[in-house]
């Protein structure tokens, strides 16, 4: 089997890449190793409404609920509210990923991409040192797909990068170990996403409640890998349920690893581009990765079309992707990484002080950047090392 481009992975990044490349006229094959796209979910499903609409017109069934804003809880129980749309760009819609991911794969298929499910990439095909396709297993049978270009959108467990010589192995400091329950509970706030901070709640991470409507919410937490031990994420989540949602009914369980390494040195190699979690393009501070993956996917798909028409599949020919994604999301990722590196070291006393300091401020209309500037003004000593990032 032959084509212009193989996209490995049928998540939001892969589907947007396949769609963009197919729309530009390429013969695209997208591989998804699972038999069902979008399931099981490994995500808290929050996205910024505005950013999503910039990329795609969402179908109503992709969205579980729309939220008004975000509420942050300090370990001592004090809370502050940040307003809708602008709270870090990660709030707005809570998606139904099972439907959303399928919807995006349909868009790729409609644009002309061939989607192959239950088809797992096993390695890269090489001829005289150059990548010339992907060897795969399709429903248990070997399959070789010849193509001069491969996009690796294969998620946190990405192999495509490693096969192409890009080391994407995550250090334990650079991954959050996450667990989440889908919970039915009368105490759930349907209108606000909630964030619970504290080292006994989620060491070097946070816990969240992302409402899905009708008193249903994704309630979960992530902890820094280096502070994890076997089964710790689920243990802490059960503890959170007891302390915060004692009457909650768990109707689904989700676990996963969230990359928070900041931008990798290179997301390209000869014949290969990496997209989304595979390229560690998740925001290291919030853990949000859907929109970044989609943005990078579109860029990679467009660059793939240019590379094919120019006949240059080398690293040099793909440099435009590298430059473009760094310009678009790379700076924010790098900044978020530095902020994360600072915030993961805070004690509960520090967090109480920071959130307490804003009790008299009206931050309800502010985004994360605005809130950080206020925080810095009120707590210059504690936040001094972040001076260059905030001001």
């Amino acid at each position, binding site marked *: 089997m032959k084509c212009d481009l193989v996209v490995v992975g049928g998540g939001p990044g892969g589907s947007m890449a396949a769609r963009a490349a197919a729309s530009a006229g390429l013969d695209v094959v997208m591989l998804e190793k699972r038999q069902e796209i979008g399931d099981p979910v490994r995500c808290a499903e929050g996205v910024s409404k505005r950013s999503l609409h910039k990329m795609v017109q969402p179908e109503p069934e992709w969205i579980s609920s729309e939220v008004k804003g975000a509420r942050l809880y300090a370990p001592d129980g004090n809370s502050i509210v940040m307003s809708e749309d602008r709270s870090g760009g990660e709030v707005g819609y809570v998606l139904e990923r099972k439907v959303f991911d399928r919807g995006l794969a349909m868009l790729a298929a409609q644009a002309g991409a061939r989607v192959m499910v239950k088809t797992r990439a096993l390695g890269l095909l090489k001829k005289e040192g150059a990548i010339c396709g992907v060897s795969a297993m399709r429903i248990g049978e070997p399959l070789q797909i010849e193509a001069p270009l491969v996009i690796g959108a294969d998620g946190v467990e990405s192999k495509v990068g490693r096969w192409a010589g890009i080391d994407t192995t995550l250090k334990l400091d650079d991954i959050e*170990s996450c667990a989440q329950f889908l919970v039915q509970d009368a105490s759930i706030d349907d209108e606000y996403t909630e964030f619970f901070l504290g080292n006994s709640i989620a060491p070097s991470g946070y816990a969240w409640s992302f409402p899905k409507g009708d008193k249903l919410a994704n309630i979960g937490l992530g902890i820094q890998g280096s502070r994890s031990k076997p089964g710790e994420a689920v243990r802490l989540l059960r503890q959170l349920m007891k302390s915060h949602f004692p009457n909650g009914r768990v109707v689904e369980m989700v676990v996963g690893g969230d990359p928070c390494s900041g931008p990798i040195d290179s997301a390209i190699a000869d014949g290969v581009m990496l997209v989304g979690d595979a390229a560690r393009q998740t925001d290291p501070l919030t853990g949000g990765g859907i929109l970044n993956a989609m943005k990078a996917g579109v860029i990679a798909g467009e660059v793939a079309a240019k590379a094919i028409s120019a006949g240059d599949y080398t690293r040099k020919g793909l440099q435009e992707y590298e430059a473009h994604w760094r310009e678009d999301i790379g700076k924010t990722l790098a900044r978020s990484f530095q902020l994360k590196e600072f915030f993961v070291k805070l004690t509960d006393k520090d967090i109480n002080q920071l959130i307490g300091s804003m009790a008299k401020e009206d931050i309800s209309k502010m985004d994360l950047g605005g809130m950080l500037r206020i925080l810095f003004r009120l707590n210059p000593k504690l936040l001094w090392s972040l001076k260059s990032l905030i001001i």
Partner: protein
Amino acid sequence: MLTVNRYKCCYCGACVGVCPTCALELVETWLEVSTECKECGLCAKICPVGALEVRA
């Protein structure tokens, strides 16, 4: 050796992302461990459900 408790594993793939030798591969609900495994235990530490264990 590295053992996988398949009754616990929720096949999330977090372990695959941290494996320094690329010894793990998630095939839908089945986590494969190859002979490349050096029993470093990083995967066990990160596992959200505690499905992995390095046994002597």
